[in-house]
């Protein structure tokens, strides 16, 4: 893709907190990263996981616990959460990749329900109240993530924002590199024609498992970062509704496009924050978008745009 587009997006990310409410922007980045991770699996490997909230939410609990109760610095807490998600991804993935298609989706869903149960029951999670009051602390023991800069009369948490932005860029870079590596090419080959990949001598299960672990680790990275932003980890993050939301984001933006999950996350998070006064209609609206997308825009926003521009986005 055009280099200028990347630079433009990066600059947008840098100036965003001065224009948009920073917490909203950070939430957006976390969900966008989550959707990107999910898309690595659905878009580039062809596996629909209906239990990705387990990694997202699971990591946010672990990170919260490490920072709040074990006194770790934020970056170590996030690292811990991410590693946990990778490990969990390995376990879930090993079980799930034995099945394909819809079975795969069902298996991931069921395993995620077990994670949900643990999140509700484990002694450190705070049950349905969630793990509250996670301190943001000092990054590397030096940079105060709570520090608020007053710009134009508005208090802005710039330290935290740029940290989250950096995490997002890191995650994005890892996913981008994965997609465009030889490994990514094999994944795409798998998605298109699995028997052929097998006949070419690829150990298909190993590739799938690898993709699953990377995807769940990045999803965990997103959830861990979110725990720091909101200073809490809650059951919502591990519930199947969140798993459904990330599917929606990816589908809406465009499955198998690099920028699609970004656009999808932007739309869904904005809707959720702007439609807080319409009551339960929000569920109807999101459901409606789902239906319209599936029926009319299976390529998503970015996919359709790419088709118009005749290039891959």
């Amino acid at each position, binding site marked *: 893709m055009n280099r200028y587009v990347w630079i433009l997006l990066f600059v947008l990310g840098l100036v965003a907190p001065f224009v948009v409410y920073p917490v909203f922007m950070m939430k957006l980045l976390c969900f966008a990263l989550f959707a990107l991770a999910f898309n690595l699996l659905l878009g580039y490997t062809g596996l629909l996981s209906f239990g990705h909230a387990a990694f997202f939410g699971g990591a946010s609990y672990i990170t919260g616990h490490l920072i709040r109760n074990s006194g770790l610095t934020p970056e170590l807490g996030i690292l811990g959460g991410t590693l946990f998600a990778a490990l969990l991804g390995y376990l879930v993935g090993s079980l799930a990749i034995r099945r394909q298609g819809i079975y795969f989706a069902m298996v991931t869903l069921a395993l995620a329900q077990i994670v949900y149960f643990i999140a509700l029951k484990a002694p450190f999670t705070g049950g349905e109240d*969630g793990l*509250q009051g996670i301190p943001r602390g000092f990054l590397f023991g030096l940079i105060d993530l709570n520090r608020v800069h007053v710009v134009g009369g508005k208090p802005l948490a710039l330290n935290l924002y740029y940290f989250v932005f950096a995490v997002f860029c890191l995650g994005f870079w890892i996913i981008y590199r994965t997609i465009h590596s030889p490994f990514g090419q094999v994944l795409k080959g798998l998605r298109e024609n699995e028997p052929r990949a097998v006949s070419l001598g690829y150990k298909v299960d190993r590739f799938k498992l690898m993709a699953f672990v990377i995807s769940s680790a990045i999803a965990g990275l997103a959830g861990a970062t979110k725990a720091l932003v909101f200073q809490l980890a809650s059951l919502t993050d591990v519930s199947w509704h969140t798993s459904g939301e990330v599917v929606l984001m990816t589908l809406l933006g465009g499955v198998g496009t690099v920028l699609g999950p970004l656009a999808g996350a932007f739309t869904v998070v904005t809707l959720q924050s702007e439609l807080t006064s319409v009551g339960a209609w929000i569920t109807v609206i999101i459901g409606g978008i789902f239906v319209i997308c599936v029926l009319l825009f299976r390529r998503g926003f970015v996919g359709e745009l790419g088709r118009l521009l005749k290039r891959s986005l």
Partner: protein
Amino acid sequence: MKTSFTRATLLLAALVGTSGMAAAPTEKISDGVVKIGVLTDMSGPYSTLGGKGTQVAVEMAVKDFGGTVLGKPIRVIGADHQNKADIASAKAGEWFDNEKVDMITGLLNSGCALAVQKVAGDKHRITMNTGAASTDLTNKASTPYSIHYVYDTYALGKVTGQAVVQTGGKSWFFITADYAFGQSLEGNTTKFVTALGGKVVGSVRHPLATADFSSYLLQAQSSGAQIIGLANAGTDTTNAIKQAREFGIGQKGQKLVGLLIFDTDIKSLGLNVAQGMQFTSGFYWDRDDASRAFAKKFFAIHKAMPTMDQAGAYSATMNYLKAIKAVGTDDPDAVMAKLKAMDISDFFAVHGKIRVDGRMVHDMYLMEVKKPSESKGEWDLLRIVKTVPGDEAFMPLSESTSPLVKK
């Protein structure tokens, strides 16, 4: 953010204001408007007992107050936190930073309430919680800017537990929702039951949102306990009561006691099924002339009688505005100081006062569901069996773990 110096001056101004000398009030309202945010569950499982009704109550209070305070307009905004703590926390932060909201009320669901209370405490803004039940809000999570207005699990457990034991219900079996709220409710009730010589013969913990309670009810039945305590809420409670009726439990010998029940739950069950049950409430619309007058006005707009959450939100808003008027500023420190000093007596609370830990202490009521034959109308559901003074109902400061309580 204001410096501590200006806050001290404002506090001074506030004290001057209360002592009757007319301080110039014109610039004492930050941003030229008092904004009240109603942040609660407007679409989920608790939306019938809070939801839009809470916003209606707050808007009524603003209208009844006259729409302005100290010559400045009062605005109400509402949002649905969808029972997601992150949405609640983000919305509250945005309201404080960008919308200049001065006070947030409603806040059903303890998870959301704790998250918002934290944000508000950090930003020095006031929360007046009318919806959530957790005692954490006035204990380890309390801040100088948090008020818990209506009820909590301690008061529910204590009032119901003591009253039932005193009338002979000595042995208990709990059917408890297996999450923090249910456990806290069971724990608090157990404490008062055993203190009065009662005993708990068993309990069973069920997952949240259980559809079929028959298995638990049979376990409760065969335990031989006189009282089956339901330490759960919402659909779990109504399903359990309904099915107890189906199995003939709670009619002869054994008695069902609900620990958190709202008028709307009784409405949903019907008197036929719910009759005779006892529970504790912070408000009942048919208590006296003042509460009936409010309820009538509320009903005209919302088409339902007010729950304790909704009535509490009206009262909280009204007293918040009165405090602003009295101190001549909307500065949070000054307003909180005034709120904690005022006597709060209105249609909602009798002899109410807000303690240092933010707990609003007021009379609580032991309610009993009427028989169908006693009911004179669609909303004539309950009778007040006993009025328990606030000091006896709520957790005493000596037991508090709030950082605000000096020991």
